[in-house]
Structure formats: C-alpha cells, structure tokens
C-alpha cells in the first residue's frame, strides 16, 4: 500500500500503542519466556517436555482442569450476565437504575474476603444452608459449596459482571428496527433473541468471553480458597514459585498464556466471519414498545431477586464487620453486633491512608487505561495494518498471564534501569503500582471498547470527515461520544478492579503507596476477620460512591448517545 495520510495516521496512532505494549507487555513477558527456556543456565526445552511427559500427569491434569473450569465459567457468567443486562436495559421499572448499578457490585468484592463471605454464606456451616436446615428441621444441610462447584459459583458470581457490562453497553447500540424486523417476520421472542439480538451482541459477548476465559485461567483466589487441592494451572504456577522453581513457574505461565491466546485467536476468527456494523439507512431508533406485561414483570422480578442474591455476599461482609472478633466462632449464627470493628479501625489515625493510596493509584492507572484503551481499540477495529493479530495478542497478554506472573515480570524488567522506565529503577517506587494496574487492565478497556466499536457504522466517521473535521476532532466529537458506553464500562471495571487489586499489589507495593487490599489481607493474616470485613465494607462503600458519581456525571452523557 502506498504511503498516504491515512496510513500515516494509522502509523501515528499505532506507534504509541506499540511502544507501550512492547515496553510494558512484550518486554517483561519475553523475560518470562526466556526464563522458561533455561535450565541450569543453558537453553533448553526440557521444562516443556517435562510438563507434558511428567509421570504423575499433574500438570496436564491442571491444564485440563483450568480449561474446563474456564469454559464453564464463561458459560455460567454468560448465563447470568446476559439476561441481567437485558432485563435492566430493556425494561423500565421503578428502581431500575439502582438495580442496574447494583448488579456490578460483585466485582467490588475484595477477592479474599469475598470468597470467605461465600464460605460463610454457603459453606457446610454457612448461614444459608443452616438457616434452611433449621427452618425445615432437616438432619443435614441441604447443600454446600466447595470444590469445583464452589469455584464455578464464585467465578460465575464475580465474572458475570464482564458480560453484564459489555452487553449492557452494546445492547443500546443495536438498531431496534432489526429486532422489529425479526418479530415482523414471525419470530417468537426467543427466536428473535437467539437469532438476531444475540448474534448482534457477538462483539460484546466475544469480548466478555475472552475476559472471563482468561481471568478464570489465571484465577487464583477461588481455586486456592475453595478447592483445597483441586489442581489448576494458576495454582501450579503459584506452588512452583513457592517451591522456588522459577523456571517451571515460567514454563507453566507460558503454557497458560498460549492456551489463553489460542482461545483469543479462536474467538477472533469466530467474530470476523461476520459483519456486525449496523448500517441501516438513517437512524432507526424507534424504541419498540412491544411488551407483554406478565413476561415483563416476571423478568423484572427475576432480575431484582437476582440482584438481591448477588448482594448477599456483601451483606455477609457487612454482617461480619458488625460482629466483634471472637463472638462468632463455633456458633452457627452470630449473636453480638456492634461497631467495635469500626471503632478499632478508626482509632488508627492512618486508616484513610490506604484508601487514599488506592484511590490515587487507581485514578492514575485508570486514566492511562482510558486514553490508551480507546486509541488502541480504535486502531485495532477501524484501521488496517499488518500484524493486527499480533497487537491484539499483546493487548490480551496482561490478562492471560496470572497476576503474580505480571508482577514478577515487572520486577524482572524494572529492578534495573531501562529505557522504558527512563533510566529509573521502578521497583520500590510509587510508580510501579499504577504501572502494574495500568498493564493489568489494558485488556479490559480495549475489549469493552472494541465491542461497541465493532458495531459502529463507518459512514458516521466518514460523514464527519467529509464535513471537514480532522481525524482527532471527529474522534472526540463523534466517535468517542458514540462508543462512550463501552469505554465507560471498561474504564469503570478497570477502576473497580484497580481498587481491589491484590496479587500484583502484594508483590510491588511500597510503604508510600500501600493500597487497601493489602490492608485487608494483613488484617486477615492476623485473624481479624471482623476488621478485615470492616475494611472491605469501606472499600465497597468507596467503589459504590465512585460508581454513583460516575453514573451521575458521565451517565447522563452516555445515556444520550444510547437513545
């Protein structure tokens, strides 16, 4: 292709994207790769051959389990997230906006405390099974979670949010007349959903599937806490690392990444077979008024009940935070409630420091994610260039690798001066954490932005440019507002994730930027379940506040482009 302004623009946009990716994703990852190819100081594939020929097959078993759990996690998350997105975006009922926001609360759950809340709720001695047992006078608890089912429940619970958010933002972009056309051709409600709406959501669903698949592959807390010894690859990596086999850990990480990337390539292929740009003539945003009241209200009731169930773990944390330490040990139900934990917490003059740190870190990292994500996504979706798949893979790697591996990569890469860190040693400084958050959450914003961008009719951009708007102006005034819901979905997710981020934080935090998740972890380590829960509540409140504010201030704008 000849050089022209458009290719130049592509290159101009691509360069910063590539720079960031190479510096902070590729370069550190290569170090892992290199590590995995070393044994006793010589280059070799022996770690890989060991992986597959190992006698006890534990690695293969773990690999298989990981894939299996991840696929099921995708399935279950989709089964919760997509219907909820529908109910809360397609039907209007009192309190809709509250429930719609509340539905993303699971992601707010601090990972360890969250999983423990689950155990308190649904474990063998959990509140719900025992309550049912006592209520109906059963001999045994009717159910309990644990093992694979436990992992899956926790995964579905925390990860459906990815589906919920991406699908929510994409639903609004669907031209309602397409669904109308399908109804008109005689398709039943289900058919319309299955044959038209659902396929049109493909970009969003692909995005969410990728995010969920990869995060389950790399998921740590849930298998660690719930499965006892159930073998998954992410745990194997952790144990290899604990056992000091860094090279084996690296090998396992590389294999995990390869599986995730294969999934990515498969999804890309699947999505690219078809076209999702809604290019009908004119703006067909006649809101369909079709509704069957019984159906509607039953859906709505389901949705509301769903959200209440989704909020139970938060309520459990609230409960835990109100129970003073040592008063709920062997008892089935707690008996004493007071603000003791909060009092202890607030007696510490530094209680707000981690909060402030978390906020600053997250804001800095998320701002970076926003800018980078939008540009990268635009380049990936709307521009042509060779090596797109490669860039796409780079974008997803931070999600495919377990967080601890990312943390280790960063340590390897930046505990010596490099050009990418402007000749500074980053490890041990304030900036390493926001950088880590930024890298971790690149895929979130890029993917969720991709999802809406894929649906955008190109002629809108063309119209703007033919009216004389420069690319950047067009981007700011036309494209960005249109894709805002998707961008915001991703940004919000990445912000929320940053606030709660633990696995890389624990490797990289310093005295000056110690975030709230570390604080919670430390309380837990000291068996202060109550104070940890109280801290968790503060974190939840903080995130809820941010959600509320962003809803108030950005929501208005985003909504407008939705109508």
């Amino acid at each position, binding site marked *: 292709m000849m050089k022209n302004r458009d290719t130049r623009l592509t290159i101009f946009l691509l360069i910063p994207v590539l720079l960031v990716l190479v510096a902070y994703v590729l370069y550190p990852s290569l170090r892992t790769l290199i590590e995995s190819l070393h044994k006793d100081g010589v280059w070799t594939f022996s770690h890989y051959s060991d992986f597959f020929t190992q006698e006890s097959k534990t690695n293969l078993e773990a690999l298989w389990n990981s894939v299996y759990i991840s696929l099921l996690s995708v399935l279950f998350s989709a089964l919760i997230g997509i219907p909820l997105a529908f109910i809360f975006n397609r039907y209007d009922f009192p309190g809709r906006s509250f429930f719609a926001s509340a539905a993303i609360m699971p992601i707010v759950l601090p990972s360890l405390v969250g999983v*423990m809340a689950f*155990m308190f709720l649904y474990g063998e001695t959990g509140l719900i099974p025992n309550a049912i047992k006592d209520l109906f006078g059963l001999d045994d608890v009717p159910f309990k979670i644990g093992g694979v089912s436990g992992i899956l429940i926790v995964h579905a619970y925390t990860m459906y949010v990815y589906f919920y958010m991406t699908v929510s933002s994409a639903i609004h972009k669907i031209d309602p007349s397409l669904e109308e056309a399908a109804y008109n051709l005689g398709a039943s409600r289900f058919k319309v959903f299955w044959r038209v709406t659902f396929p049109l959501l493909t970009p969003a669903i692909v995005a969410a599937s990728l995010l969920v698949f990869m995060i389950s592959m790399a998921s740590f807390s849930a298998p*660690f806490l719930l499965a006892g010894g159930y073998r998954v690859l992410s745990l194997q990596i952790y144990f290899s690392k604990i056992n000091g086999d860094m090279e084996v850990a690296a090998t396992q990480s590389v294999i995990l990444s390869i599986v995730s990337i294969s999934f990515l390539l498969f999804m890309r292929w699947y999505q690219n077979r078809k076209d999702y740009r809604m290019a009908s003539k004119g703006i067909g945003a006649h809101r369909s008024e079709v509704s069957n009241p019984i159906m509607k209200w039953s859906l709505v009731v389901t949705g509301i009940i769903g959200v209440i169930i989704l909020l139970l773990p938060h309520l459990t944390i609230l409960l835990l935070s109100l129970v003073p330490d040592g008063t709920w040990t062997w008892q089935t139900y707690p008996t004493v409630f007071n603000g003791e934990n909060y009092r202890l917490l607030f007696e510490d003059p530094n209680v707000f420091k981690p909060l402030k740190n978390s906020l600053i870190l997250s804001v800095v990292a998320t701002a970076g994610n926003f800018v980078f994500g939008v540009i990268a996504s635009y380049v990936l979706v709307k521009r042509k260039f060779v090596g797109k798949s490669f860039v796409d893979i780079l974008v997803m790697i931070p999600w495919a690798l377990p967080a601890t591996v990312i943390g280790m990569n960063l340590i390897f890469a930046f505990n010596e001066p490099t050009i990418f860190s402007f000749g500074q040693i980053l*490890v041990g400084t304030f900036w390493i954490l926001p950088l880590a958050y930024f890298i971790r959450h690149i895929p979130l914003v890029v993917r969720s932005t991709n999802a809406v961008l894929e649906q955008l009719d190109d002629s809108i951009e063309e119209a703007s440019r033919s009216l004389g708007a420069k690319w950047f102006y067009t981007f700011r005034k036309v494209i960005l507002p249109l894709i805002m819901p998707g961008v915001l979905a991703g940004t919000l997710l990445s912000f929320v994730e940053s606030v709660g981020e633990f696995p890389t934080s624990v490797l990289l935090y310093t005295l000056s930027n110690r975030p709230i998740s570390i604080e919670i972890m*430390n309380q837990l*380590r000291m068996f202060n379940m109550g104070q940890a829960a109280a801290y968790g509540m503060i974190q939840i409140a903080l995130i809820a506040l941010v959600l509320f504010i962003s809803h108030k201030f950005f929501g208005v704008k985003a909504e407008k482009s939705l109508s």
Partner: protein
Amino acid sequence: NSEKEVVTETAKEEKPTLEEKVVVYSPHGKDILSKFEQQFEEKYQIDVEWLDMGSQEILDRIRSEKNNPQADVWWGAPSVNFDQAKDEGLLKPYAPSYSSSLAEGFHDPEWHWSGTSQTPEVIMYNTKELSKEEAPKDWDELLDSKWKDEIIIRYPLASGTMRTIFSAMIYRDFKDSNDPAAGYDWLTKLDANTKEYAANPEMMYNKVAKGEGALSVWAMPDVVMLKENKNYPFEFIIPESGTPVLTEGIAIVNDSPHPKAAEAFYEFVNTPEAAKILAEEFYRIPTRDDIDGLPAWITETEIKAMDIDWKVFQENSDTWMKHWDENIKSGEKEIKE
C-alpha cells in the same frame, strides 16, 4: 509514616549516629508492629516504618529488591526462610549483644540471623466436640480410623507451618533410613482421614470451630492466641513423641539503607522486656534463656522438641511436598460437590 515530621525534628540532636528511620519487613502483624514502633520511636526518636506481609512474600520481595534494597530489618520468619535468604546472599551477618543467651539452634552459625521466638507445632482440637481425654495424644493417633473425616488441614504447600509438620513426619524415619517411603506412607494414611484441605488458616479455624471437623494440626502460639483472645473453642495437645519446633528469627538485610538504625531495632525487639511483652501479650515463646516471669502457659507446658537437622529439611522439603502434592493427596477430596 505519619509521625515523620515530629520525629525528624528531635532526632538530630539526640541520637546523631542513627539514620533518620528504619524500615522493617515483618509478618508479625499490626498489633505487634505498632506497639514496637511506638516504643522504639519513643526511645530513639527515629521513625519506624514497617510493612507487614507473609514471610514467603518477604523473602520474594527482598529477593526482588536485591538491586536496590528498601528494607533494613526482616523480623519474623521460620529459620528455613532465613537460611534460604542467606544462601542467596540477601542477609548481613550481625551478632547481637545478647548472643550469649541464645542456644545453639537458635541462631545461624555465622549470625546471618538469630532466633527471637519458638513455635512448637501441636495437635489442635475443638473443645465443643472433644474432651481432653478423647483427643489424640500423639501424631500417630491421628491415623486412627475413628478420626475419619474429622481432620481439617490447612493446605500444606502454601503454609510454612504445615510444610514443617509434614516434613517432620517424613523426617522421623528419613533421618535413619534416608528414605522417605515410610513418611509418605504415614501421610497417605493421614490423607485418608482428612476431610478437607482448607485454603487458608481462617477457613481452617472456622471449619474446626463450627465443627465441620474436630481436629487439626497447627502452631501452638496461634492456637493459644485464638483461644485466649478470640474465644475460639480450641485447645492444643503437644504430641508426646516430640514435635518440630520452629525458630522464628530476625535478620538485617544486606546493603540495607539504614544499617545503624537496623542494628538498634534488631537489639530492641529482643530485649528481655520485649520478649516478655511478646510472650505475655502475643503468645510468643522466647528463644532467650535469660528471661524470667514468663506466663504460665509457657512454663507449665512441657515441650519435647524433635531433633531436626534443618539443613536436611531445607534441602528435601520441596521434593517431599511436591511428591505429596502429586502422588499422595487423594483425588476425590479435591472435588467436593
């Protein structure tokens, strides 16, 4: 930390020899650390900054900060961790003023670390479920089939305590036979009785407390602490045949930014007064043999320490644990639907 401004003002005149602050990495938790921070700052007028995190994490972190160390003192970790760090050249040797009061096993021969407290591993049981008489008295009694599905064990790979216990079980035979087979066999039987491997201590406590299981094995100070401070229905039994006793220690980080202050802190946390506080308030059994007036639960408990060559532990425990993980841990237990 926050007091920095206040502290730095006065620090200059009083103790000009110390640096302006000392950075401590420790798993001891906020309660202990705040207490000692406050006392140290009062005495030396310099700032104490601490990061509390798991001992494994400290090791990782000191390793990753090798090129520009941030920490001065590493306070609290089983001696094996220190040995490992020592081998990697992460620690600076320092013989404290009280070195004479430390027994042979309580410090590194080259003084790269020294012990501050000892942690015997014990059998823990739920007092609501079992009486003292019913409870097993020794390791081998755990294998009795009546405890089937009554034992809840912290998943051992990620836990120093559990690794120590499991390794010790193997070591009992290994030290003579040089073959872990008998130990593996023992662990297989334990596995058969084990109801569940809890992923973290909190879950384990919770499950034992609520009676999902009645027994566990764990570190004694923690059990005491849970019982005394948190009202858990726990009691412990020191196995008659002897139990591994971990030494927790303190060390100074190589190339630490504040070496003088580090030494001061090193000394400070193992003064007799400090050791007494630790014992009384935080259930830590001191290593120093020159401390009087210790609480009854220490003086009255007879601890029969297993004779352990920690070097052997350090060399083999990874292999043993790996073997356990891959070959012993029962497959059914992991998938509890």
